[in-house]
């Protein structure tokens, strides 16, 4: 009998067993289906996502000479969570760093203020841009330092010590750039200046990912799914520049010991053939670990070697502005090619003449002899030609037209459609500006702003703008935005000047005569018909700036150049021979006047300029 009641206990036992199994199935459901943290845990456990950095695009000059290429470099990265049992002393010795550096660096990495998006699970850059020699010791013994890894990278290397300002350089990406572009991760490199910056997106390529399997002891056990899910890096695109590296080298050589810049443009295409800014530096000193140290030195140098004077320095163009003035005044009907004005030499008023020549002067002679009174009279008759009107409104309108005409030579604004990163605007003073300065619309007249007539006063231009204005004259009426990338798409950016083609020949003839009878006759080259204009610009700091602008040859111009030598003296003495030698190099392919070349090279106008 008792067995019968006990028999029912099998149901109790069956229920106990069933309940436990149901509870376990529910638990499985919870951790396998509902919770996601375990899946994430598995990801961070087993997958080591190793970034594959693409090789950066190479950079060539216009003749396909290699300028910039890559050399291998290494980063030491670390995953904080995986660092354990670290023998700090031997680690520091292997990397040739001191313990203090190590401690500071680790603290920096962990500091979320300095290191956005820090995570102890992801690789952090511990040291960057090491050479093969730097990591030779540690490479063999890396397994002793769990949590630390070697990451292959590439560094820039340069075939020539030139064109640093054009090329720019590469540095660690800034915090702001990481925030704005999700491509970048802390520790990545990116172009910082010059074309490395402008063409960053094409040069950098696309990063890849290699997914590696890592076991519990941190050993790599091969690729996940045999690399099926890996993303291969895509190499950066190569870039061919418009630069002629030989011309560039010559330009930099001629500028040694001087402060100033050169811009050379091919007028028919807008291609920049050379862009020199001195003082300069060897671009390779801003590569790798020495970068930050050298960068500070350059930054603190009073001669400002980091500044690209060719595009950023702004000067009064002085007499080099006169050809443009001549063109604009003709276009506005203030003068014709036959207009003559009298010149009393240094006694002229209100604008003195700095040269001695006959009077009256024709337009042609005025350009050839750089006659200041002529251009003052031309400017005045142009903007005063219709009188002043009520509240000077007619005068002011004419002044506006003059400004527009001048600006159509590419002056007074940045080339916004250019690929040159660092540019200054220059300045062509507006009516508004004068209204403000002279406190009313009637407070100023032609005579008030007479300095503008000879390119002094408020007018400012960069060497790039001056060279481009020469392109307009060489092309007789238009320019193509100056640029550095030798791609056909850049040649379509044509800008017409407001000055009619018919007004150009007389100016070109005048500029040609500068080499025959004028200020640059000593810089003449046998067999090449050159056109140019000197400028000697007074400035508040020391001696006059020596400027020369021009183009050559006169027929089918191949090169338009602006040369500025700061605080040197007469334009004809310093800037004109530089112009002449550059033309010789570019047109003839070599320098025959070696004596002149040496003489110009050896002129030192600023003893603070250092060779770097």
């Amino acid at each position, binding site marked *: 009998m008792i067995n019968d009641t006990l028999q029912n*206990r099998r149901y*109790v036992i069956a229920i106990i067993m*069933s309940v436990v199994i149901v509870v376990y199935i529910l638990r*499985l459901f919870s951790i*396998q289906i509902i*919770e996601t943290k375990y*899946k994430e845990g*598995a990801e961070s456990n087993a997958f080591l996502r190793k970034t594959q950095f693409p090789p950066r695009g190479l950079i060539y000059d216009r003749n396909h000479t290699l300028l910039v290429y890559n050399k291998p470099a290494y980063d030491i990265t670390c995953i904080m969570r995986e660092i354990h049992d670290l023998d700090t002393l031997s680690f520091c010795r292997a990397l040739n760093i001191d313990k203090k550096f190590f401690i500071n660096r680790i603290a920096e990495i962990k500091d979320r203020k300095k290191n956005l998006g820090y995570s102890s699970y992801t690789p952090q850059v511990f040291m960057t841009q090491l050479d093969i020699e730097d990591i030779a010791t540690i490479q063999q013994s890396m397994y002793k330092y769990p949590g630390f890894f070697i990451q292959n990278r590439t560094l820039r290397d340069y075939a020539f010590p030139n064109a640093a300002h054009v090329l720019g350089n590469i540095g660690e990406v800034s915090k702001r750039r990481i925030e704005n572009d999700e491509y970048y991760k802390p520790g990545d490199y990116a172009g910082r200046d010059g074309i490395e910056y402008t063409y960053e997106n094409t040069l950098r390529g696309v990063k890849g990912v290699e997914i590696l399997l890592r076991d519990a002891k941190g050993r790599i*056990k091969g690729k996940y799914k045999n690399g099926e899910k890996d993303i291969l890096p895509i190499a950066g695109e190569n870039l061919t520049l418009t630069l002629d590296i030989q011309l560039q080298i010559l330009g930099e050589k001629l500028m040694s010991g001087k402060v100033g810049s050169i811009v050379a443009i091919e007028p028919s295409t807008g291609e920049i053939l050379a862009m020199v800014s001195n003082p300069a530096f060897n671009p390779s000193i801003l590569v790798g670990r020495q970068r930050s140290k050298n960068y500070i030195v350059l930054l603190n140098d009073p001669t400002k070697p980091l500044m690209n004077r060719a595009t950023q320095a702004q000067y009064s163009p002085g007499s080099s502005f006169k050809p443009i003035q001549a063109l604009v005044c003709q276009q506005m009907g203030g003068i014709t090619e036959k207009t003559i004005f009298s010149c009393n030499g240094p006694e002229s008023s209100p604008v003195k003449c700095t040269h001695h020549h006959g009077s009256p002067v024709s337009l042609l002679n005025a350009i050839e002899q750089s006659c200041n009174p002529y251009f003052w009279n031309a400017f005045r008759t142009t903007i005063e030609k219709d009188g002043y009107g009520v509240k000077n409104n007619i005068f002011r309108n004419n002044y506006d037209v003059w400004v527009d005409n001048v600006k159509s030579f590419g002056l007074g604004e940045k080339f916004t459609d250019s690929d040159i990163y660092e540019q200054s605007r220059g300045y062509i003073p507006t009516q508004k500006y004068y209204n403000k300065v002279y406190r009313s619309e009637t407070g100023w007249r032609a005579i008030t702003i007479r300095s503008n007539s000879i390119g002094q006063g408020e007018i400012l231009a960069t060497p790039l703008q001056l060279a481009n204005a020469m392109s307009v004259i060489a092309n007789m009426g238009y320019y193509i935005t100056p640029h550095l990338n030798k791609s056909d798409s850049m040649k379509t950016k044509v800008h017409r000047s407001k000055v009619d083609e018919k007004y150009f020949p007389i100016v070109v003839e005048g500029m040609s005569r500068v080499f025959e009878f004028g200020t640059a006759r000593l810089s003449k080259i046998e067999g090449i018909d050159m056109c140019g204009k000197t400028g000697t610009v007074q400035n508040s700091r020391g001696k006059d700036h020596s400027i020369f602008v021009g183009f050559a040859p006169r027929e089918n111009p191949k090169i338009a150049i602006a040369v500025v030598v700061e605080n040197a003296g007469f334009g004809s003495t310093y800037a004109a021979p530089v112009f002449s030698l550059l033309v010789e190099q570019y047109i003839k392919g070599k320098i025959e006047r070696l004596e002149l070349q040496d003489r110009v090279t050896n002129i030192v106008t600023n003893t603070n300029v250092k060779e770097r």
Partner: protein
Amino acid sequence: MSKNVSIKYALDWTTVFFYVALVFMGWISIYGASYEFDQSSIFDWNQRAGKQFVWILTAFVLGGMLLLVDYKMYNFFAYIIYAAIMLLLIVTIFIAPDIKGSRSWLVLGPISFQPAELAKMATALALSKFMSSYNYKLKNWKDLIPLALIVLLPFVLIVLQKETGSALVFAAFLLMFYREGMNGIILLLTLFAVLLFVIVIRFSIIPIQVDQGTLGIVLSMGLILLVQFVYAFFVTKHRKEASFLLLGTLGLTLISIVLNIWFKVNFDYVALFVVIASCIYWIFVELFNRFKKYWMLVLISIGSVVFCFSSDYLFDKVLEPHQQIRIKVLLNMENDLTGAGYNVNQSKIAIGSGGFWGKGFLNGTQTKLNYVPEQDTDFIFCTVGEEHGFWGSTLVLVVYWLLLMRLLRIAERQRETFNRVYAYCVASILFFHLMINVGMVLGIMPVIGIPLPFFSYGGSSLWGFTIMLFILLRLDASRLERMR
């Protein structure tokens, strides 16, 4: 010859099917767990899956041989088998080499064997024989002592081998005892004791106020009072007395809280006082009303109080540090994921990352990359969870459940007590292993290193469980022979 034919018909092929299914799934999982990326064959003798294949084949042969033995032999030799195995356990303690602190492995050339795996079967046989003996009664104190000795002897020997986990398995016989007439209260009390232990340990670190008692004691005393209330209210239906208990408890609690404004009251002692007062109260109720229903309640209450106040001590002094940590990890008191909590955390990660469908056969990353410890033995269930996901692991649990239900059915159809007791022993042991092992892997049981039956890598456990199961199958098959 005729005997063979009868076995073929009488054998419970359903159980054999579940057995083969589990062994096969286990083998596949071992291959998955020990699979390295340089692919090797599942039959490679140098790999664990290959070795397990050999163990499986020999286990099949062994099982077949056990079926050929006359069923009466198992009954007849039960004590001798038990004695022999106990002797082997004793010998093992002295001659076994120290492997990770455990002295349970007998090493014979290339093969090592764990006699403890056979002890379960031997104990089951001895218990069955004793409990099926003429005029045996479970309620008889004289009979209880040898019964306890039969279970305690292997338990102690295995503890001496430093295999506490395997020794705990002998608690599984409680289920069988229950079926054979043990008072169900003992099962409830066991559950109650575990509950009190967990509460005391879990909340012992939370003070109510500094130096004024801990939440652990107060809660556990509250639980004891709750049991008293439920018993009086629902079982004996003395609702007036039950309500008085409730009011008294609330009153005393309120008074102590009010007093706490002026004095520092130690709430441990308040709770203790309330429980003792309640016990005295029930004794009076008993004496004045002659209910004869409260003696047991008072005894259990007092026992519980003693147990609670000694739990802390037991935990600190009796358990070894690594055992304490395992329990603390389980109770979420310790969160050291690189230390003691590492195994369970990694095990949960491996299973959790499997999702519904799993990562696919041989595609598990966590188990392959050795994140999960003991992944082909105690933590083999992780591989199933990771590679075959929710559906795969549920399938395995369902097969176990079907097997257990089948075994209960087999047990109940036995005419002989010996056979039935033995069947319940087998079902209880398999269930206990499953509960502890899978519970551990899922993080709801403490880490106790015992294998998953038929599944885990290792010849000893596979042989041990196979022998245990096939003796049962042979006994079961005999029920038809008898009828002829």
